[in-house]
């Protein structure tokens, strides 16, 4: 019984951790959308900034990956 309760809590927590993905989605979309609107205003400057696009996406994505990590820890390590 006690173990079942802990298991249940871990599964609910893992599901809740997936909400973090939404945050990462907002962040990545914000970076990519702003890049696109900037690129459409000044297309000649766009190729030089793709590196920053990917760096920005990577930083935004890292936090979503942290929530994935929390979910994994709850599923397999608790």
């Amino acid at each position, binding site marked *: 019984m006690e173990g079942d309760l802990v298991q249940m809590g871990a599964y609910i927590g893992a599901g809740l951790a997936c909400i973090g993905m939404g945050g990462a989605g907002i962040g990545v979309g914000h970076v990519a959308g702003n890049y696109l609107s900037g690129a459409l205003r000044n297309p000649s400057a766009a190729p030089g900034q793709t*590196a920053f696009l*990917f*760096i920005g*996406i*990577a930083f935004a*994505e*890292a936090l979503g*990956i*942290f929530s*994935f*990590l929390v979910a994994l820890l709850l599923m*397999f390590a608790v």
Partner: protein
Amino acid sequence: MADANGGLNIRPMDQFEVRPLFGGDTVGMFTITNVTLWMALAVVSVVLLMVVGSRGRALVPTRSQSVAELTYSFIYKMVEDVSGKDAVRFFPYVMTIFLFVFFSNVLGLIPFAFTPTSHIAVTAVLALAVFITVTVLGFVLHGTSFLKLFWVDSAPLALRPVLALIELISYFVRPVSHSIRLAGAMMAGHAVAKVFAGFAAALGAAFFIPILAVTALYALELLVAVIQAYVFTILTCVYLKDALHPHH
């Protein structure tokens, strides 16, 4: 996760199991496992691409030579653009990281293959190597003035200690996010593909719907494999830039 009495029996995490290749079931320090095999295959692919590609040294490159040249100049330009001209002496290191991660990711997409980069143990070693290199390099080149990296001169004086704390935390989180990003992206992608493939087996007559989805997903995974290798490399370049030019 999956119940034994009927229903879906998909075990998406089983593909990441580390198994000894030649019998036995204990994995020790020097056991040859499937991770060892696929890392070795990645290294063999790198050697094949670069050695075979540069063997001809033709003025008009053959196909393999132009792929090798494109990769070389792409990474060279990345190091030069992101880390600055004086970072070019670290180009071999960055190139090694890129090619190893790239081939580990892409070879892992072959069905029944194993992806070494889906294990945090593998990516953590790569990320820690970068972190330690960059930190030691910063202190060797700049001495204690490397610590100015954490002291933002352009901010108001009252804010500086707070910013220093935040910068310090973000500096030590670097190896964590650097390694988990790669491992997480690889692991999640492969697990999703496995789950969709399991749907195809469970749906019977309507199997073609998940198979179409898996095909699309596979294309996305190829993109992710290349982009994650690119991102890992470009972040290495960014950290290198911080070590070489710590002043904001």
